[in-house]
């Protein structure tokens, strides 16, 4: 009897021991992101802080799957870290799941920064990772322990053997629950995100089995939620399992904001990366640079949208996506009275705004993907400069473009991250201007594209410069656009959007349309119609051309703008010379009046 009870005890102990091992395996398997350089897992070998490196257990991986009838994926970290030889079943097992963000990463990632801010409960530096400081936060703490206090007093009629069976069955059930539970907790979403997406994250999930457990403070514990599994009675005690976990509802948002944006960018419909060979014959040759191609697609989206909902119709965007909506469709945003950026004053600072709506930006990224681009291409007028109402998307395309066309996406994505803030600022800055511009009264294709075209031709410029310019123009525009709209001539605007601060008056739009429809004046010189317009304009008023060139130099489209105006002037001069020569040759005796008349 005594011997049998001993053997029963040994069996019970083994069950308990295996229960510990299986529990650890389940937790680690669902919290250890796959070893990948993407996940900053260079310190992956440090993930499990077991004092011993004994791998005595690793040889019994498969047989262990039979325990509790639960075959798990191999998780070497779990098994190697679990020092079976040394561990006593009486020792509680604690598994901390730590969210780690590097200080370095936070610098470049608004999402990462937000993440840490949300986890501000307990931030501390750890020198674990060599030179870099880390912000760490325990988001889950699992506690498994065998409580051998005198439960045995509660004697039942059943035999020990039966008890063992019951205990085993209940432990099996408990592990089933655990298996489901670990996938329901918020940390699993992070784990899944880290694993499934091929994105670069600024944080990682690190499960640890600390030897010395640092107890939570009361505040910390109050912040966390607890779930205690119903203990499983054993022969001489009971198995207890509980988890303290943080609710990551807000974190899950922020953790998506940073990583998600590049995903949308890489393969959006109009991306040069997605469709690098796509050409836009309608674009003038001299402006057929990759950036403009992608911009034109943006424009086509907005155009489509514009077509679908006429300017006079309010799109009534919902509150949560009002920003993205505003970015997507300017006419809509313009008609939104409660829009946070309806006022055109500087207080609506672009950067602040951008930080306040990181998600909307992400959505903005996603939205254009849904809009079919091709329909517009046929409709697009030749002289319509490429434009974009979707600022982030524009930048998304801008980045690859800056690397001359279909470059490797990785570099582009990195830049997206690096310039994330600038994007935000530009975003809102542009939105301001779009709100202030009376583009609704414009004819569709051309007038709406002016302003966007200006912003889009900015690839040679630093972001900050452009941002400042945009902000300035947008803030000053409301008061000044009327006069300016009348003061400036439309033709230079047509010239690929080289005019950044152009006011948009209906008259201008009408004039542009008229000019667009007008037959080309000099088809023999170039296929591009834009220089023609410039030339024509400058012929009428060369001084205006100069002024425009100056203006455009300060704005985003320096290179193209300067080129355009310079070309126009050059052509003007050359034509004048040609004309003079011809006239002088043909009518050598003619008076100077003849020259001026022609």
């Amino acid at each position, binding site marked *: 009897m005594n011997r049998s009870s001993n053997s029963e005890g040994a069996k019970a102990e083994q069950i308990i021991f295996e229960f510990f091992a299986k529990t650890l395996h389940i937790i680690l398997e669902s919290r250890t992101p796959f070893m990948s350089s993407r996940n900053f897992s260079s310190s992956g070998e440090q993930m499990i802080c077991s004092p011993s490196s004994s791998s005595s257990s690793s040889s019994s991986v498969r047989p262990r799957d039979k325990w509790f009838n639960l075959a798990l994926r191999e998780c070497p970290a779990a098994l190697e870290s679990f020092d079976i030889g040394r561990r006593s079943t009486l020792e509680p097992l604690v598994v901390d799941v730590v969210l780690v963000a590097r200080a370095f990463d936070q610098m470049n990632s608004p999402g990462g920064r937000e993440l840490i801010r949300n986890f501000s409960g307990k931030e501390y530096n750890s020198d674990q990772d060599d030179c870099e400081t880390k912000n760490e936060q325990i988001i889950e703490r699992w506690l498994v322990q065998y409580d051998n206090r005198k439960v045995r007093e509660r004697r039942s009629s059943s035999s020990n053997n039966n008890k063992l069976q019951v205990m085993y069955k209940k432990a099996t059930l408990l592990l*089933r629950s655990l298996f489901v539970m670990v996938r*329901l907790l918020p940390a699993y979403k992070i784990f899944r995100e880290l694993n499934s997406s091929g994105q670069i994250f600024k944080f990682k999930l690190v499960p640890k089995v600390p030897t010395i457990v640092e107890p939570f403070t009361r505040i910390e514990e109050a912040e966390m939620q607890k779930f205690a599994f119903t203990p499983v009675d054993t022969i001489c005690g009971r198995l207890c399992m509980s988890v303290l976990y943080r609710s990551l509802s807000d974190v899950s948002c922020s953790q998506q904001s940073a990583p998600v944006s590049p995903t949308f960018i890489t393969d959006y419909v109009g991306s040069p990366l997605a469709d690098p060979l796509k050409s836009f014959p309608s674009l003038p040759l001299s402006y057929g640079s990759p950036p403009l191609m992608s911009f034109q697609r943006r424009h086509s989206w907005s155009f489509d949208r514009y077509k679908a909902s006429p300017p006079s119709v309010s799109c009534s965007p919902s509150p949560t996506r009002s920003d993205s*909506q505003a970015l*997507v469709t300017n006419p809509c945003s313009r008609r939104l009275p409660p829009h946070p950026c309806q006022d055109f004053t500087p207080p609506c600072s672009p950067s602040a705004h951008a930080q306040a709506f990181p998600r909307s930006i992400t959505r903005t990224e996603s939205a254009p993907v849904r*809009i079919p681009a091709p329909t517009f291409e046929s409709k697009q007028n030749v002289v319509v400069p490429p434009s974009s109402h979707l600022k982030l998307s524009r930048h998304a395309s801008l980045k690859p473009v800056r690397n001359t066309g279909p470059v490797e996406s990785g570099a582009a994505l990195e830049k997206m991250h690096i310039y994330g803030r600038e994007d935000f600022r530009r975003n809102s800055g542009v939105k301001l201007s779009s709100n202030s511009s009376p583009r609704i009264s414009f004819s569709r294709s051309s007038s709406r594209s002016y302003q966007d075209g200006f912003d889009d031709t900015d690839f040679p410029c630093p972001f900050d410069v452009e941002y400042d310019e945009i902000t300035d123009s947008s803030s000053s525009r409301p008061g000044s656009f009327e006069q300016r709209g009348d003061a400036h001539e439309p033709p230079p605007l047509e010239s690929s959007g080289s005019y950044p601060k152009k006011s948009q008056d209906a008259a201008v739009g009408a004039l542009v349309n008229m000019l667009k429809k007008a037959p080309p004046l000099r088809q023999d010189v170039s296929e591009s119609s834009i220089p023609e317009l410039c030339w024509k304009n400058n012929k009428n008023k060369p001084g205006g051309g100069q002024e425009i060139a100056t203006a455009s130099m300060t704005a985003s489209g320096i290179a193209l703008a300067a080129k355009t105006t310079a070309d126009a002037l050059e052509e003007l001069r050359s034509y004048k010379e040609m004309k003079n020569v011809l006239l002088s040759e043909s009518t050598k005796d003619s008076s100077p009046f003849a020259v001026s008349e022609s």
Partner: protein
Amino acid sequence: MNCEVCNLKELEVESFEIREVLRCVLHTIVFHRALGLIRPKDIDLELFDITYVQCGEIEVEKKIDDKIEQFITWIGKHPNKKSQICLTFYEVKTKQPSWFTNKIERLYWEQWNINLSAFQPPTKPPVGKSHHSKLVMDHPGEESEDISSRRTLLEQSLQEVLFQIIKFVNEKKDHVPPINDGVIYCPFEITFPSSSDSTFGMDMLKRMLHSGGHPSMLS
């Protein structure tokens, strides 16, 4: 030993969400009752940010899918109706003849009531995955917001239901039959009012009769 009954929180689902919601709930329950050697399979829901677990048995999957399809067909004919899907686990006993002279007897030991309030969307249902509906362009205006917020609510409710399952499984363990070698999962059946409208009540009656006579399994 009683037949334990668990009434799950009602889920308000649109017709196109039924399949996924039911799969999630049913598989989660069955997973807890698949006590044989299993190789669990994680399934990420498409409509919701939820991962559930299947026991990895093809027959289970097929059985559940078939029943769900039947239910969806039925719900198509009875829209905007509350309905209850019953998942019951039983043991098969070849027993001495009873009044019903069946030699094979089903002894129900657990019943899960999944409550659904299915409704047809007033407008055309969104196509595809959830994140599509979150896109700005898909559902302009308030409609999109409604869909999004409703989806979020349903996701929370579904999560609550899954927690409810876990809690129930944890609290009630004694009635579960012992693990039998070679038996991967406990036999179960899925019924809903329509599966046979006339016999549904009879089934329930039978279950009630049997629930009192559950064989003692343990302790």
